[in-house]
């Protein structure tokens, strides 16, 4: 049913034993209050009201996004566990099973960047090891405002140190991701963390409770008042008063989490654990109700048995606490002590705090009385759903932006645009924090621990990690996982459907550039308020694009996270939404780590190729619309973003992967923000070598030739002895969609348009100088 169906004033709300502001403070709307009463057959008490508040928040029940998420493809030949569990699990062959998921911690990071980001990492790791998988890598997708702004610098530095603090101590390498800067994220940074784990237990551990009379174990840390109501907090707009919500931000203890990982995996291997659920958002409330609902049983929990951090807590506080590093287990009756001993050995809490009951309810006991009793379904499944209608036509901002055309730019000459030379323009782009090296960030992350990290962060288009079972030193593996997080939110803002498709296409392209076959997706939908027409249009259109693209690339969605209401109120009290940002986390399979590729040139004399749309393409697949160039140089956010050509993407990506598998490819790098010229410069910088490039610029403006984006393009370098085989491979698979651009040479990047009459190449730039600009852009702004 829909809670908004009733047009009349909700009757129960009017007679509620709570002040309206108390109900509102739980994030519950008047109609929803009546829906709660319908399900209970009475008014809720204070603790129950709090439980409904968190469980019916967008963060927990997806009331605004569920109808849209249902269109995602979620099954496939490698999918072992799809959405609905703590994480998705995919089959990577040779007995290797991979759990992975992305989750956001945007709102906490906005008010307390260090702990907000740290506990974001802690939370996503728990989702992985709850399944019985040992976390082997973390990636992050981070978005901030303009680095020129002191507040943004504080948020940026805080988030990076929080991730560093937690990830380094817990001993899981942070191997990659993305960092993006735009003033659209000034007051509302995005912190999305993705974790990947390798299954260590024979059976995948699931959340559904079973076995009437089985004991419910509480393990891990103690329960305190920290993080009260974090899920509701995360489902509302940020205001100046949000700073007062800092108690809603949890405090993490990575040392405890490290011990919890070891103890949980040890416990699962005993076979005495029937089900497990981590306590993240909505703590005890969420874990008890989801375990009960998934298992079709009930859970009775006695709060007097819960290890507490502070005295005098009331049921409401126990139930809504988001204290970190806690888990709930259902154990086999009679074997609870065996499990408790393991946790005590790791100096962790472990107590029997309840039991599985037949009646499908969550019953909470406190001081000998029933403190709350709610149907599990009402909390975890039979929750409100809001179906909204798309506006009749795209919003005015988008229609206006689509009218932009190249003709709106100042004229281009052979030497540059608006008095700036091509060299200067390339430098401007390399100095853009979004494009520039993220070394300042990843140098603070332990990206090597566990001894499986194949590429340094930034060295290749995707992170590559060997899939060696860490707990078994007698087994090695030649298999690897490639992983990436991608989203160009400017594309999505300007055209949510095309932009979302491109996020999937780019993720798949990045995996293909290291030689990995794209397998599956976890997505993090970061949007503004769906209650507004524009916000809903962005969300719905992006979901449509994601669904279509995931089908096209045969990369099912196995789970993810929805973060709505990413808005800040400006000084006039007007909500300013972020750019719609559907972050795509994708994992890919590498069957042989002996055949992979990174992005830097390898040897002098290697030939350089461009796969994908031609450098002088004018079909619309390659465009300056929505480009970084347009935004950074011309301060213009407009135009149609590049349109994804699925057939071309698939052909190009396969040609790249197959070339790498055949050992023909020396380096591979896709063209993304900044277009062809920036991609060539990055391959020069990474390889510490120059290149001599000729481009066919017939009929195309110089800036489009150099800086246009899109077109499914990948730059490949090939050693001289492989040229014949490589070109034969391309002629067989990609005829008409590849060209030779030049060769790796010297210590300068030169780019010449073949039609030019100018005396100088368009670009003639020292690799060392470009490396300096690109390498120091972020550090320089931090001062």
């Amino acid at each position, binding site marked *: 049913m829909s809670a908004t169906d009733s047009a009349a004033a909700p009757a129960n709300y009017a007679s509620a034993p709570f002040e309206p502001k108390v109900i509102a403070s739980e994030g519950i709307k008047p109609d929803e209050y009546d829906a709660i009463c319908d399900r209970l057959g009475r008014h809720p008490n204070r603790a129950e009201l709090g439980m409904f508040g968190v469980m019916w928040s967008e963060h927990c029940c997806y009331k605004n996004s569920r109808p849209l998420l249902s269109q995602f493809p979620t099954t496939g030949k490698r999918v072992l566990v799809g959405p609905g569990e703590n994480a998705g699990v995919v089959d990577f062959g040779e007995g290797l099973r991979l759990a992975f998921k992305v989750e956001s911690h945007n709102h906490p990071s906005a008010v307390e960047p260090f702990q907000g980001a740290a506990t974001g990492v802690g939370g996503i790791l728990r989702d992985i090891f709850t399944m019985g998988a040992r976390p082997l890598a973390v990636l992050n997708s981070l978005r901030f405002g303009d680095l020129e702004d002191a507040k943004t610098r504080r948020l940026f530095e805080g988030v990076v140190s929080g991730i560093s603090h937690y990830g380094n*101590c817990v001993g899981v390498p942070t191997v990659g991701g993305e960092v993006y800067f735009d003033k659209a994220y000034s007051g509302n940074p995005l912190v999305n963390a993705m974790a990947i784990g390798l299954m260590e237990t024979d059976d995948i551990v699931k959340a559904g409770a079973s076995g009437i009379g089985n004991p419910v174990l509480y393990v891990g840390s103690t329960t305190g008042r920290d993080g009260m109501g974090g899920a509701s907090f995360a489902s509302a707009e940020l205001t100046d008063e949000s700073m007062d919500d800092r108690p809603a931000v949890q405090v993490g203890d990575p040392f405890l989490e490290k011990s919890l990982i070891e103890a949980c995996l040890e416990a699962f291997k005993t076979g005495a654990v029937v089900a497990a659920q981590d306590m993240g958002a909505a703590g005890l409330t969420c874990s008890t109700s989801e375990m009960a609902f998934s298992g079709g049983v009930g859970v009775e929990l006695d709060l007097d048995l819960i290890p507490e951090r502070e005295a005098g807590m009331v049921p409401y506080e126990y139930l809504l606490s988001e204290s970190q590093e806690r888990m709930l287990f259902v154990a086999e009756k009679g074997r609870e002590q065996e499990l408790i001993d393991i946790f005590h050995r790791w100096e962790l809490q472990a107590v029997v705090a309840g039991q599985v009951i037949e009646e499908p309810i969550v019953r909470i006991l406190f001081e000998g009385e029933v403190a709350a009793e709610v149907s599990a379904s009402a909390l975890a499944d039979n929750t409100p759903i809001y179906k909204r209608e798309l506006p009749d036509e795209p919003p005015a901002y988008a229609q206006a932006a689509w009218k932009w055309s190249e003709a709106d730019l100042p004229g281009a000459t052979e030497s540059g645009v608006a008095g700036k030379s091509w060299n200067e323009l390339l430098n401007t782009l390399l100095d853009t924090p979004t494009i520039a090296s993220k070394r300042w960030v990843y140098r603070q992350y*332990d990206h090597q621990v*566990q001894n499986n990290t194949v590429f340094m962060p930034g060295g290749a288009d995707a992170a590559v990690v060997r899939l060696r079972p860490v707990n078994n030193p007698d087994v090695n593996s030649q298999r690897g996982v490639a992983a990436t997080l991608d989203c160009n939110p400017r594309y999505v803002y300007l055209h949510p459907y095309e932009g979302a498709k491109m996020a999937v296409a780019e993720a798949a392209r990045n995996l293909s550039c290291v030689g990995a076959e794209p397998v599956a997706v976890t997505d993090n939908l970061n949007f503004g308020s769906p209650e507004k027409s524009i916000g809903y249009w962005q969300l719905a259109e992006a979901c449509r694009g994601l669904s279509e693209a995931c089908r096209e690339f045969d990369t099912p969605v196995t789970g993810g996270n929805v973060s709505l209401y990413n808005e800040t109120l400006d000084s006039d009290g007007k909500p300013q939404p972020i750019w719609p940002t559907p972050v795509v986390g994708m994992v890919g399979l590498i069957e042989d780590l002996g055949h992979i590729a990174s992005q830097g040139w390898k040897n002098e004399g290697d030939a350089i190729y461009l796969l994908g749309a031609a450098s002088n393409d004018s079909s619309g697949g390659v465009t300056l619309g929505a480009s970084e160039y347009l935004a950074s140089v011309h301060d213009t956010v407009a135009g149609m973003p590049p349109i994804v050509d699925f057939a071309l993407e698939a052909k190009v990506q396969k040609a790249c992967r197959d070339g790498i598998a055949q050992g023909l490819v020396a380096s591979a790098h896709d063209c993304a923000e900044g277009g062809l010229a920036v991609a060539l410069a990055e391959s020069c910088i990474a390889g510490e070598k120059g290149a001599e490039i000729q481009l066919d610029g017939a009929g195309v403006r110089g800036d489009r030739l150099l800086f246009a984006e899109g077109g499914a393009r990948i730059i490949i370098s090939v050693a001289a002895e492989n040229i014949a085989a490589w070109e034969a491979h391309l002629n067989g698979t990609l005829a008409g969609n590849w060209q030779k651009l030049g060769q790796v040479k010297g210590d300068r990047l030169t780019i010449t348009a073949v039609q030019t009459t100018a005396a100088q190449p368009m670009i003639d730039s020292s690799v060392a100088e470009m490396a300096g600009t690109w390498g120091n852009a972020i550090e320089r702004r931090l001062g």
Partner: protein
Amino acid sequence: MQGIASIDRQKHQQGISMKFGIIVFPGSNCDRDMQWVAQGILKQPTRMVWHEDSDLSDIDIVVVPGGFSYGDYLRCGAIARFSPAMKSTVEHAKASKPVLGICNGFQILTEAGLLPGALVRNANLHFVCDRVPLTVERNDLIWTKNYSQGQTITIPVAHGEGRYHADDDQLKRLEDNNQVVFRYSKGENGDSANPNGSCNDIAGICNEQGNVMGMMPHPERASDAVTGSTDGLALFEGLVKTLVAA
């Protein structure tokens, strides 16, 4: 090898192997990385030694691995030194048997008094994870037999508190006794690769006898070609070869 006790010679003449013991504290996180190198790559018998275990009698080489023992909330290594396994490690060292501390292990060895000086917060206050060039200062130790003196090797670092500090007298004694084993290298332009502000560019030191070594860089992370470098494997290979031959 001067000062290094021969360890069950007969066993090693027959089996040609050295048994590694890797101390595991709550919060250790490079213990399995070390195990992979000792057992997985070098095929040496290896035992994970729980911090509450005080029996090291079967162990030839004790490794105190990297990580955040007990969370390192007080001071790195300050609590770990009191564990039963560390008390036995001190005995192991006093019996002239080899003890290696890597990263957090180095910090623990200084806290336990097996090595002089202290490791303090990096000069720039940030955690640093990178691959840095080191100069091998001496190759007459069990640890460095496979290197040549003055050789530059590239080894990963990953630490927040890796700035080696000692007072002037102590530094002088270290230098006079030739106890600096690895130093962060100076590049062609004279810039040091020192990532943390360590005194005298010190990356690793040994005790006077040479059987105890501590280093902030992680040789076990440079022992497997697939992760990019094997410059660190030579340390372990040389160690096993030298001890077996002793």
